[in-house]
């Protein structure tokens, strides 16, 4: 009986995870009515997450800036980067995403999205053990901004550190992921915090819980109409492909409104994983957001009952778990790339290949891997030994040509390098990373799987759990 019930539960959960598009193909994260009692303003919708979109634009712009150095210390560039990271000044242009051919972006300044926003104030404040130097999240970012401003196009060939990738991939975790799963979808769902029976602030057209939920959704980074878009389309919107304009432009005004029609950050990586056809993270997460928002709206401006909050927390759990998987999938993919790159680099050394180009690719992929691996560790959840293993296997830089690796940072902020393993051994570390990520997070897309060939062959052979006697 127990087994049957378990089977039933699994079946229900799986079917609800695998078929969101069927159930909600037309549902959009928009048009939710105002439920605040005695609202006096002229707004028609209670949905608002423009502050989050402003931070997405700040992040995309900072990423662009981080690749603009010329290899010499550059105080002006550093100040500019800091303006996008820590500043709140008016007049900051959106450097990315900007209009590109037919892909016309509606907003051109951060203020048009939301005024006075920065990234620093929302960056993970705990210690980052994945990076040497005992720094908090925002200290790590500022340390990298300083280095990036003096690097050539964001890249330091002496250490193999690609600051553009590091800053971007870690920041997505330390701000968007952390804020959503460790703040909005966590303690802010409690009864005593931001209650649904009151406006978020005096005069706002949304309740406490409505806005908390919207803010989390905003950080995920998918368009409001994401459920009607497939993974490939969402992916191409993020890439600003001309053919994606029609799908992105939900209201048909020939412009892409960053506030509701654009793809950012982990929304893009979720779609990237789903393109494989093996996972459905983007729709699963979006649907949980919409379901949760509907639940809050149905409460009609009253405080949520305990049961409603439990239901809401169940949606939050779906979001949290799948969001984590999205980041782990990205780390998995780049671990596979680094594996191939490290072997290619050794091959280039042995056979007089193009070292510079091979090393650059290797370093770029490493920066992405490291950034995502660090992002996984700032959700407020202690990954325990998984984090320790990840950090040891990946290290604080890629293994360099002399088999050395960055192992620390001295008091002046200079890197310390120590002897490490060979490139071939380091490549094998990457297989360990993939295995660890898959075992810990239960991945589905598994792009660049380096052990894939083993499992494919294993599937062909007969089942070994057989009782056939001789």
């Amino acid at each position, binding site marked *: 009986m127990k087994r049957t019930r378990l089977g039933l539960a699994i079946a229900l959960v799986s079917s609800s995870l695998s078929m969101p598009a069927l159930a909600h193909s037309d549902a959009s994260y928009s048009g939710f009515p105002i439920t605040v009692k005695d609202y006096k303003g002229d707004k028609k919708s209670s949905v608002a997450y423009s502050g989050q979109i402003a931070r997405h634009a700040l992040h995309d712009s900072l990423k662009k800036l981080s690749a603009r150095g010329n290899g010499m210390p550059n105080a002006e560039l550093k100040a500019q980067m800091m303006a996008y990271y820590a500043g709140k000044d008016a007049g900051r242009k959106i450097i990315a995403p900007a209009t590109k051919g037919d892909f016309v972006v509606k907003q051109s300044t951060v203020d048009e999205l939301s005024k006075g926003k920065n990234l620093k104030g929302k960056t993970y404040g705990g210690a980052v053990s994945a990076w040497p130097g005992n720094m908090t999240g925002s200290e790590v970012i500022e340390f990298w901004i300083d280095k990036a401003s003096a690097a050539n196009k964001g890249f330091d060939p002496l250490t193999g550190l690609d600051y553009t990738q590091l800053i971007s991939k870690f920041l997505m975790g330390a701000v968007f992921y952390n804020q959503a799963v460790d703040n909005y979808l966590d303690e802010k769902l409690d009864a005593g915090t931001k209650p649904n029976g009151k406006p978020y602030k005096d005069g706002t057209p949304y309740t406490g819980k409505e806005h908390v939920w919207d803010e989390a959704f905003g950080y995920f980074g998918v368009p409001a109409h994401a459920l009607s878009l497939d993974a490939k389309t969402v992916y191409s919107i993020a890439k600003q492909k001309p053919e994606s304009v029609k799908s992105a432009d939900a209201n048909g005004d020939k412009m892409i409104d960053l506030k509701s029609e654009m793809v950012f950050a982990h929304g893009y990586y979720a779609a990237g994983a789903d393109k494989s056809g093996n996972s459905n993270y983007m729709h699963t997460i979006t649907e949980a957001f919409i379901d949760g928002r509907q639940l809050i709206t149905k409460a009609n401006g009253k405080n949520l009952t305990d049961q409603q909050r439990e239901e809401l927390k169940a949606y939050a759990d779906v979001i949290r778990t799948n969001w984590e998987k999205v980041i782990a999938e990205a780390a998995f993919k780049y671990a596979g790339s680094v594996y191939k790159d490290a072997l290619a680099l050794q091959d280039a050394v042995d056979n007089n290949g193009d070292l510079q180009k091979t090393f650059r690719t290797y370093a770029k992929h490493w920066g992405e891997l490291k950034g995502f691996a660090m992002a996984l560790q700032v959700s407020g959840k202690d990954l325990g030994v998984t984090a320790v293993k990840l950090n040891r296997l990946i290290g604080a830089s890629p293994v360099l040509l002399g088999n050395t690796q960055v192992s620390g940072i001295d008091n002046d902020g200079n890197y310390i390098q120590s002897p490490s393993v060979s490139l071939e051994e380091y490549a094998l570390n990457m297989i360990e990373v993939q295995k660890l990520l898959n075992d810990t997070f239960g991945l589905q897309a598994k792009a660049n799987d380096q052990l894939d060939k083993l499992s494919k*062959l*294993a599937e062909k*052979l007969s089942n070994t759990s057989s009782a056939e006697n001789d």
Partner: protein
Amino acid sequence: MIESFQIDAIPFVSELFLDPRKRLFIGYLFAAILVALAFLTLRGMALPQAFRTLFSRKVWFSKSARADYGLLVVNSALFSMLAPVLLAKLTVATLIYQLLQTTWGASGLQLGWPSAAIAVSFTLFLFLLDDFARYLLHRLLHTVPWLWAFHKVHHSAETMTPLTVLRTHPIEGVLFSLRGALVQGLCIALFIYLFDDQVDLVTVLGASVIVFAFNVAGSNLRHSHIALFYWPWLERIFISPAQHQIHHSVEPRHFDKNFGAILAIWDRLGGSLHLSEPTTELQFGISREQKADHRLSTLYLTPFIESYRLIKQRFLAKAIPKKQNKPDLTQKTIYK
């Protein structure tokens, strides 16, 4: 997800009788019937009589056969629960693959073999290693007293039908599964290491071509009363059904003979090959004098008690060497 609602019996039946990678695949059973009928009629039996011999109620509804059916059902349920905790071939493959890479470098040989040659080598290597491992484990099951306690469950069959192949104690099942995981894991790791993703298995209906051929040739008659024998020269290469029936015989001179699954060469090397005796009427089981107890409780529990006694005896013999406490190996012969 509808599958989740179905009771376990459906996948169990489909796995058992509809998977060409399993001995009891319906096609192999049918092939065995054809082979048996051909054999019996060639031996001068009329077709109706051959049919009656094949489907004799005395065999198919004997106490022994009914115990087979009971074991099969209980074991299937047991194994569906055990399967996730058993060592998986993929785990073994991954470990060995990583070991190979750390010992001999990340990439294997660049021999430039054509894919077909690699597939044939893999299929052949897997078959040889698997067949040898079966022989070896089977030999151990007979020669190590506490293992014999478990394997006796299989040998307690006094009438044999193809389903007797699954008359197995769960502990043996675990050992078989371990053997399979080690053999398959090793082959996968080694070949992927050497030839990367070019490796493939040569298959018919999804089953290894060699296993397929063995099964189509009437492998299911090994556990039956149809003493299909081969020419002596062939019985020195492949174990015939009659030779496996010799292995199940209560005749003391047949004890510990013909451990092999498909190939006879391992038995030849190990000195345990025994050719079939077409003129001898065989009696199956453990002991000529003592009838076996076919109650499921006995079949499942006795091996534990016996092996515990054996291990305790052995331990005592070591601890107090002067006392008369030789492990009672004669016990084995008594049971046989």
